[in-house]
Each structure stands twice: as C-alpha cells, then as structure tokens.
C-alpha cells in the first residue's frame, strides 16, 4: 500500500531527475561550444572518469557487472577464481576500471556527444549513458586481462622458480569467518533485485550511491528493498529458531 507521502516523494524525485537532465543538456551545449575539447572538456572528462571508475569498481566488487553485460548480450561466464580476484584485489579491479574508462571516454565523446547519440529526450542522464559506453567496452577489456593472466600463468608454469605454492582461493581471513560465510549465503538467497543492493550495503555504499549503481529510481526505493529484505530475513530466522 503506497502512501500519499510516497507518491509525493516519487513526484519530487521525478522532478529532480528532469531538472538534472536539463542541466546535462546545458552542460552538453556548453561543451559543444568548445568543440568538446580544451580545459573545460577535460574537467568534465575528469569528473565523468571519477564517477565511471567508482561505479565500475563497485560493480566489479559485487560481480553485478557480469549480470549487466550479460543482459546486453555479452555473457563473460567469469570463473569463481576471477570473481574472487575482482572482489578482493582492489588493484586488479582499479586497473580494469581505469582501462575501461580510458577506452570508453573517447568513444563516448565521438558517439554520444559529437555524434549526438545522447539526447535529453532519450531519457538517460549523461553519466548513465557513459556507463552504457563502459559496459560496451568492459567485455573486451576483461577478456584482454584474462588472456594476459593466462599467458602469465603459462609462463610461470614453465619456470619452476616462479611458481608459488597454490594458495587458498578464499585467502581473505575475514571471508573465512563463519559469520561472513553466513552473510554470503544470505546474499545469495536474496532475490535478483535485492542481491546487489544488499551486497553494496555491506560494502559500505550509501543508499544514494546504491540507487545510482543499480539504476534504482531513488534512495527511498533502495531503502524499501532493504527493508523488505530485512523483514524477510527476520521472519526466516524466527522460523528456523536462530
């Protein structure tokens, strides 16, 4: 049952997002005045890159990115080990995010801005459109990393001195803690919509950020998903007598 306050909030959200998109249009026009080059364009690129990098890192950390690219027709079928590396090795994650953004930025400039692919009427904000460009680039970058890893591993195998003893794939002591394994089980059990939201919440992202990261309409909506997930979990625990 939706209250009048909720409806009011949604209307405010919609108004806010329209206002932001109108400003996006203004920003685009301002950048066009300088042929999408020069100091101000670089400033815009910097902020877009920071945003894109942060979003890609979060998406990779939770593995959500694989769902997004698969839904666009690029299933990457990451192995458990690959997911584990992206989850725990922030340098690997940062490198991949950085490369993806670096390749996506000129494409975005050419197609979305100069080519007019992005429009106010299209319904997406500039940053969302940019993330679309990143998702388009990501599979190639991921495969490149994968190929490099394979090559390195092959070289290491050939050179006995370089071979380190096989380490436990779950090397993070925190992950080995029983409580965390339980958390992971619970996340896996959450629905498709709740799963990334719960995972990102545990990673310490704010509700505003999660709304941004998952394309959920608003922070309020994220809060709602979390509320319903918590209520369900609480119910389950009571049933199982925990």
């Amino acid at each position: 049952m939706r209250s009048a306050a909720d409806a009011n909030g949604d209307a405010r959200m919609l108004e806010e997002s329209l206002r932001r998109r109108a400003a996006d249009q203004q920003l685009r026009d301002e950048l066009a005045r300088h042929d999408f080059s020069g100091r101000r364009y670089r400033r815009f690129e910097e902020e877009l890159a920071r945003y894109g990098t942060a979003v890609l890192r979060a998406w990779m950390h939770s593995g959500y990115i694989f769902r997004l690219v698969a839904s666009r027709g690029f299933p990457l079928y990451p192995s458990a080990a690959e997911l584990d590396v992206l989850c725990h090795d922030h340098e690997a994650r940062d490198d991949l995010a950085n490369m993806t953004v670096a390749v996506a930025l000129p494409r975005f400039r050419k197609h979305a801005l100069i080519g007019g692919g992005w429009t106010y009427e299209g319904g997406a904000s500039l940053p969302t459109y940019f993330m679309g460009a990143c998702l388009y680039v990501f599979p190639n970058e991921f495969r490149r990393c994968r190929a490099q890893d394979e090559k390195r591993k092959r070289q290491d195998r050939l050179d006995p001195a370089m071979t380190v003893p096989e380490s436990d794939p779950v090397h993070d002591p925190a992950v080995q803690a029983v409580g965390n394994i339980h958390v992971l089980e619970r996340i896996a059990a959450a629905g498709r919509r709740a799963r990334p939201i719960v995972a990102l919440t545990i990673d310490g992202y704010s509700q505003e950020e999660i709304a941004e990261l998952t394309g959920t309409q608003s922070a309020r909506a994220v809060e709602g998903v979390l509320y319903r997930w918590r209520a369900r979990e609480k119910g389950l625990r009571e049933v199982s007598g925990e």
Partner: protein
Amino acid sequence: VTANQDDRDEDARFEALLEQSSLGAPGARQLRERVPLARKLLVAWDVQGLARLSARPADKVQERVAGVLASAFGEAGVAPGSREVYQQGDGGLALLPAGNGADRPRLIISLIDALDSGLRRVNEALAPSARLRLRLALEEGGVYQAGHGPGGPSVAAVSRLVDAANVRNMLEDSSGYLVVVVTDHLYRDILAYAPERTFARAGIPSKEKGSPGPAWAYLPGERAAHVPGTALRAPDPRDRAAWPEASLMGSLTPGDRAALLAAGTRVQFSDHDILVMEGDVGDAVYVLTGGMVKITAGTEAGAAMLAVRSRGDLIGKFAILNGMPRTATVRAVGTVGAVRVTMERLSALTEAHPDALPAITRSVTAKLRSETERRAASRNRSAQERLAQVIYDLATEYGEKSPDGGAVIFLPLTQAELGELAGVAVATTERLLAEFRRDQLVQTGYRKITVRDMASLGDRLVAPGARPTPVIRTDRLEAPVMMVDAVESTSSDQLPWPPVPLSAPRSPRA
C-alpha cells in the same frame, strides 16, 4: 588580468553547472568522491630509439635518463619529496605539483631548459650512436590512483601525446636531443604567456586512436616546425637532401625551412606546364623541390629568357610582394616538384617565423640585383664575357662537378635561350659557343653543356686589359642598400606584410 578574471568566473560557472548536472546528484557525487583527484603537472617522457637497443645498453640508457631527469627536476626547483616518478617501458611519467598562477610557466620553462642542457652535457661525452634523445609531453590536470599507477584522462592524453607519430618524426628530423609537446589547453593557459619560447602548433592526426587533439611543439635550439591545422606529413625524402647553399631554402634555418615546406601543398608539374603565367594575379608562391623551371617574359620580339631556377628557389614572389600581376611566365623543364604556399599561409608563416622574412627579402632583392648586374654587364662587357659569365654561373649553381675540375650542366636550354640569358643575339651566341668549343672550354650536347675547365672559363670573364670583375654570385650578394634600409628601419618582427613596397621589376629588355 581582466581576461584571467573573466576566465576564472567562467570556470566557476562551469563547475556550478557540473554540480547541477546528473554528475552532481547526491549518489553520483558521493561515488566521485570515492576517487580522490589531485591536480598535477604531468610530465611524460620517452627515449627515442631505445627499443632498437639491446637489453644491456638499454638499462644504461634508462639510468642516464633517470639521472638527467632528476637533476632537471632539481634545477627547476621541484623538491624530491613533492614529485612522484613512474617508469614505464622506455619512458615514464612524473607527477609534479601543479603549482599556482605565476610560477607555472617558469617551472615548465626552467624544466625544459634544464633538461635540454642536461641532455647536452650527458651527450657531449657519448658517441653519436649512444646519445640520448628524449620526447617530452606535458599536461596539467587531475590524477587519481588507479591500480598500479596514476590514472585519469590527463594521464591518457599525455601518454598518447608522447607516443604520437608526428612527435617522433619531429625529433627524428631535428638535430637536437629534445622535443617538447604540450596539450592545447596547457599551452593556451600557461605557455602562451611565456613568449620567450616559441612553441609551434603541431596537430596530432585525428586518425590516431583517441587523438588528444591539437598540441604545441617546441624543439630547443631550433625553431619548431609550423604545421597549420594538420599534422606533419611523412617527410619527403627529397626535402631532407641538402639544399643548394645559394638558394633561398639553403639560406633558411632548418626550422624555417621545414615550416615553409609544411605551410604549403605539394604539387607536381610535367614538362612545359606553366607554374606562373605572365599577367595573372598571383595568390601563391612556389618553392621548387626538384627539377628546373625557365622564366621568360614577353617582348615585342617574342618571349625572352630571363633566368632558370631550380631546387630551393622561390618562384612568384614579386606578384605576392606588391600585389601586381605576374611579371613573367614560369614553365617547367621536365618534371618539376614544388610546394605551393598561398599568400595567407606565407604571411602567417612570416608572422610566426620573423627570421624567415629577411631571408626571403634577401633572396628577392638578390635576384633583382642579378638582373641589374646583367643589364649593367650588357653595356660594359663584351658578348663573349657575358656568355662566359652565364655559363660559369650556371655551372656553379646547377652543374655537377666532374673529377677533372670541370662541370656538367644538365639543362635543356637551346643556344638561343642561353644567348637570351646573356643578352647576346642568337647568331653571336652560336659563333661564341663554337669558339669556346674550339678552345676546349666547353662541350655542348643534347640537353647538356659540359664545362671542361672552370678555371679557363673564368679567365674568359675578363677581357684582356680590362679591370677584373668578380664572379657574380648573385645569391650571396647583399641586397641593394635601399632594400636593406627599408628592412632595418622597422623591427623585423613587426614588419607588416607585404614588408617592402617593391616596384615591379622591369624586364631587362625594357
């Protein structure tokens, strides 16, 4: 100062617009803040030709480069603690504090100077093949930590710039050890206010992946190549061959020469093609890069041969200088290569390269003077002296030296044309050439004249008993006094174009 204030206001408005846009929404802003951005001066470098060296000397090279860079940073006043240096392959990236306002040009200029002199010092002690040659790219912008090194659009831009093909070519073509290339906005923001160094625009070809757009290049010790709008094309191997010393091209500095060639369009003419038509309104000049042209002017009796010009000479400058119709017809002899430079390009060029202007003026006035000399000679000197002089000059300027002290002139000139050059009637020319042949001075053949003995031919320049006349080496003569005055009375870099209102040269027959 007001322009700067306006700029800052504009910047503030832009930042506000960024925050109002979707990037400024609470979630997006918080996400951005997770990636801290630091403003830095980015210095990327790469060692030219290092890939060709084997592993062992490459280590040595890297070590030397690291030493040169460290001392240059020190000389430029960058404390060791305030810089981060990352080695990547044959080059690397240094992040320096971005500094504030007035210090930035000074930091960059003193860094470039320190690096240039450091490279010279190190290279002095090295064999030519071991000398260090460095490409340097500069940019200012935000940098964030990304995995194993710094990341961000500025990092990407500076890496692309240092690797751009035409930046490599510039260093390849230069005699120096360093090429510095900066992004367009760094140049506009900072270096345009440091006029003591001449940066020239150097476009990065847009077909290069993720081209960082226009850039500015500086070759210390040499004037940078001026490349309006587009990239340096692959250099024509012919342009790298030596230019005849006496020609205009030979008298320009390598930088001005490259600029002049780059300012124009490469064109080719077949035998008998007309480059310039007498009476036409001129809008361009030609720099001859290969082959030869004949210059003729109409008289009542028909076309008279005025001169021949070849590689390195400038054609069509009179009409450009005074805006009058072309004074002569220029026709290709065989295949002729040239670079066509429009009037606008030429005046832009002389603005950017003020040193080129006196050289061009000198070449114009020297040609004028040679016409005057010839006219004077036609009164005071005998037909034999005049013809000997013309052959002597042609042999000196265009002849190929033969080992026995002679020279071969490969010029498809008829005897009549040779006579016209000397102001000698056809019948007299034929008689005199026969005399020269008999005296074993010259040999004539199809499209060539062989001078058997330059020294004896030189003797014929002076009639017995007459005062010895120095050999007319027109291109090396000083310009007539009036011209020189006109040039020197104005500061050369403020000369308007056209610089000197020259009167139209008259035909020697007039």
